């Protein structure tokens, strides 16, 4: 596992008026999935490609576990970092097995040595090794190819995984399945993942942390809930759909609508649940309240009234915050 720090990272191209990446600083903690969210041309891919030094920053530095990447040999650095791209980029002339073992093989490992590892990885991404090992990429569907792409990126057990819109070219159903699969895999492997996307839904679904980029600048950085609760600007508000009440219900924890416990609480709900399931149960119960518990201790309760009140207050806070924090990168305190 590894922590990635971006420190005043800037990338300028000679003929461009504005920097592709403009003085970006943030930290991705060990084992987190950090989503780089932005429109095309926002600099998110450039930022990603600077991590494994496919591009070198003009100024600033990127540190992995405290060591600046510029102090490392780029070839060795890249071998220690997994990389997945949108068009999959499987080598068409290599079998699935040989594609998965690209990195071990350039490190000098033979096919016999990596055979078990390949099987293990194909299992991990949900492909039966006996069936797929000897096939060629073009014999696989887009979704299957991307699974192989993920297996390949994990082959040398890298601490860091870079993913550049890996599911962008897939149909909605396959994309959703692979997103679930990625979360599943991540529970087992706990990589530090940097994931570029322009899809807000994807950012919210996968991200522990979301970094919103626009025109090369970091606009806001924080957890999905922080972005929803306190968008730093109208741009972020529109991007994340902070005005979208359904999304608020989906991502806000029940503790956002906490009120003091009363006798009305007939059922219990865990404190890390979201508002949406709580709301659905409250509607099913027709009224009443749910006791919010954490580790057996009752923190309070939520009722229909408290849920509505919380959503209204989130909206008020958000409007107020966007006035003060316009385009500032400071992350505001979390509302919980």
């Amino acid at each position, binding site marked *: 596992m590894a922590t990635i720090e971006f420190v005043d990272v800037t990338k300028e191209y000679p003929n461009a008026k504005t920097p592709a990446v403009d003085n970006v600083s943030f930290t991705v903690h060990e084992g987190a999935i950090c989503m780089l969210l932005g429109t095309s041309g926002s600099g998110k891919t450039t930022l990603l490609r600077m991590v494994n030094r496919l591009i070198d920053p003009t100024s600033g530095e990127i540190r992995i576990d405290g060591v600046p990447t510029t102090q490392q040999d780029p070839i060795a650095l890249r071998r220690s970092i997994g990389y997945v791209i949108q068009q999959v*980029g499987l080598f068409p002339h290599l079998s699935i097995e040989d594609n998965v073992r690209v990195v071990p093989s350039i490190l000098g490992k033979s096919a016999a040595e990596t055979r078990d590892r390949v099987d293990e990885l194909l299992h991990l991404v949900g492909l039966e090794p006996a069936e797929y090992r000897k096939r060629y990429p073009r014999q696989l569907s887009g979704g299957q*190819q991307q699974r192989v792409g993920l297996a390949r990126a994990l082959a040398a057990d890298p601490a860091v995984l870079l993913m550049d819109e890996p599911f962008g070219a897939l149909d909605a159903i396959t994309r959703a399945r692979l997103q679930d699969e990625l979360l599943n895999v991540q529970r087992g492997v706990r990589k530090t993942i940097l994931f570029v996307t322009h899809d807000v839904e994807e950012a919210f679904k996968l991200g522990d942390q979301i970094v919103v980029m626009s025109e090369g600048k970091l606009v806001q950085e924080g957890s999905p809930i922080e972005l929803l609760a306190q968008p730093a600007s109208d741009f972020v508000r529109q991007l994340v759909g902070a005005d979208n009440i359904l999304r608020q219900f989906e991502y806000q924890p029940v503790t956002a609508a906490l009120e003091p416990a009363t006798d009305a609480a007939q059922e219990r709900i865990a404190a890390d649940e979201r508002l949406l399931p709580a709301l659905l149960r409250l509607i099913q119960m027709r009224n009443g309240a749910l006791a919010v518990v954490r580790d057996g201790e009752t923190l309070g309760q939520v009722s229909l009234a408290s849920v509505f009140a919380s959503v209204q207050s989130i909206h008020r806070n958000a409007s107020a915050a966007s006035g003060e924090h316009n385009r500032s990168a400071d992350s505001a305190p979390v509302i919980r």
Partner: protein
Amino acid sequence: MSYILDGYNWDLTDPGSIPNLLIAHISITFVSVLIGLAIAFPLAFLVARFKHLYLPTVTTAGILYTIPSLALFALLIPFTAFSQATVLIPLVIYTQVVLIRNIVAGIRAVDPQLVEVGRAMGMNSWQLQWRVVLPLAMPVIIAGIRVVTVTTIGIATLAPWVGTEDLGTLMYQGFNFARSDMEAAGTILVIALAVAADLLLLGVQAALSRGQRVNALSEA
């Protein structure tokens, strides 16, 4: 056909027999193409990297290609006399324009994104060329080798004019002695050899293109 079918012409102890001439023809072709490749590969990789060298290199090879073979033989005789080199040097020169063009075309047709992926995986420049660029360029390169091999088999029939025996000998002597059966035998054997070589290389091309009908990123 009578000349080919006559058992007398298949006597291995006779250096002028069909099998020996066939072997000589194959070996001249093989050596010429091999030397041609040994020169064209480094040149093509150089030219693919330094693009401004492409035009002068291919133009030079093209101009050399237009020199008639007999004229080239004549030019070489003062230096190499009637040795095999007099045959091999022109044959090698003629391979260059097609080989360099095809190798460069093959290299250029490799999807740059796949090269980028290789780089991102941590391949050094040698590994990139060897594991990504060359295999992906191979079908186009082999296509060039096919053309060159067939052309070389054809031009090699002129070897007897400068003292090297091969299947051309049958045509040369047939012409001199007004033996049309010999001429026909030479022609048929050369065509058969060219077709066989072409099919063999087609097989190689197919085997090397395994899994790679599209020389690009696999479609999603």
